[in-house]
């Protein structure tokens, strides 16, 4: 059984989802790459921010 940490799961999820988003939502390779990178940063960044918010709420 593959048992990644929560953060690894977020990285994998963000990588695959942003690859598909980049390819399907933009037309040129350069714009695809930039949009994919943008989506990946949003996935990972929002996960980190929300994790801190939940940590602070729980205290």
């Amino acid at each position, binding site marked *: 059984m593959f048992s990644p940490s929560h953060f690894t799961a977020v990285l*994998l999820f963000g990588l695959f989802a942003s690859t598909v988003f980049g390819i399907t939502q933009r037309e040129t390779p350069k714009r695809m790459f930039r949009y994919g990178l943008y989506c990946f940063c949003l996935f990972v960044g929002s996960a980190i921010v929300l994790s801190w918010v939940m940590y602070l709420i729980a205290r």
Partner: protein
Amino acid sequence: MASTPSKPAPTAPAQQGFVFLPLIAGWLIPGAGHFLLRKWGRGALLAVSIVCMFAIGLAMQGKLYSNAHDILEILGLLGDLGSGLLYLVGRAMGLGTDSVQLTVADWGTRFIVVAGLLNVIAAVDAHNLRTGRKS
């Protein structure tokens, strides 16, 4: 002087045939719609992303939805069906039948559903390429 009528540009092989073929092929096999349109790089990246996401979901002991008793299961089943043959082969091989008892297995279930939804997006993209809405 009469001008000679210009010949229409020959249609590319990918633009011939049934207009919904890339959509259906892309749904059944991730990336196949783009392969039919000779978008090899895009198709390969889509196929790798979607198949890996589905396989990792199963490796995390995620569940393949098989019945539709309530609204959440219906939505999960619809998401899973987006994976096309991956879902059908997984069901036929008896994968993803265990009940979810671990947190990781719950994430795996989400991976499988999202892989199906991403495959639908990729298939619609192939259809848009086929109809000329996207280049």
